[in-house]
């Protein structure tokens, strides 16, 4: 539907996997930052007459 693939990430992280959590969060933020802000599927004030 027009959302770049790199914006959506899934991961299973157990509460014991602190290092995995850090890695995943870093990856996710890097990937999303690289894509820049998403402008399309964002609602501001409703566009009405």
């Amino acid at each position, binding site marked *: 539907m027009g959302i770049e693939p790199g914006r959506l990430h899934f991961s299973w992280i157990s509460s014991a996997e602190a290092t995995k959590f850090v890695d995943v969060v870093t990856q996710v933020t890097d990937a999303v930052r690289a894509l820049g802000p998403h402008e399309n599927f964002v609602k501001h*004030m*409703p566009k*009405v*007459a």
Partner: protein
Amino acid sequence: MKVIKIDKKDWADSLGKLSGPYRLFGPVRDKDFHNFKELGNDEQPDFNFQNTRVSAKSMVLPQSETLFTYSLDEKEPDHHQMREPEKNYSPRAVLGIRPCDAKAFLLVKRNFDTPEYKDPYWVRAYEASTFVGLACDDPCSTCFCTSAGCGPFHEEGLDLLLVDAGDHFLAKVLTQKGKNLVQAAGWGVETNADVELMKRTAESRIASAISTEQLKGKAATDLYHAPFWEEAAFACINCGTCTYSCPTCWCFDIQDENHGNAGVRMRNWDSCMYPLFTLHGSGHNPRETKIHRVRQRFMHKLKYYLDKYDAGIQCVGCGRCIRLCPVNIDIRNICELMNSHDPGACTCQVA
């Protein structure tokens, strides 16, 4: 009233002249159908249509309309206050509206513009508008306007009526607003051409009709309890298409939307066909089943409105609800059931 001749080759030029003093609206083609839109610079309305898919009511009652805006940002001067948004009520001209849609505004006006109550948004938009009608020479088989108080050359509600006469339009000036528009467009060639014959030809092409003469005399409660509603309503999926496309349906719902520190209060079209329309805060719904809802739609159009205003039914016979209903619920049939209903002949009752 005088009739003016407008050469089609001058048409684009005159629109150019009109686009100064007026915001122009007209039918434009969108994929497979036509609908009313504001015309862009040099954009021409496309008159090659039988009728627009949905009615022209959005010209005055947009599907979604802002009523108020507010801000909670204390840096703004009027924070924490509902304020009316600035709207453009400068003169507008609706070009190529069909006579049924124009007449429909008069039916709606009885509700939105009364001595006691005025809907300020509707009234201002309506008053800002000049309606330039386009007479129908090729009505749909589902048009039954001539038996619904309207007609393919009907003039009520219009300021100017255009009749397509091949390489030119004949324009019948009907009101002062119409006169002003004619002047602004620079149309001046008067003719004594008569549209009467064309009118009669068009009227004779209206192939379907309803009978409404018995409705007035019937008791609303008899019609309400008539046994035919269950069958009549069975196929309905309560989609509301009939009411959204109808030029005479006026119901709306008010919603607030909040975004961060600010928001809007808006109104959106609503429909008696939706269960939510009558759902009470308590959870009780007085029109719980689709039988109630279908009955309400037709009773309002064909009985309550008639009784309340004594000025005909709340329908102009545009036939849109017939053409667009996904399950073919046909107001002509329902009207016939109601008009010919004989409570004495019934033995059963519908809850």
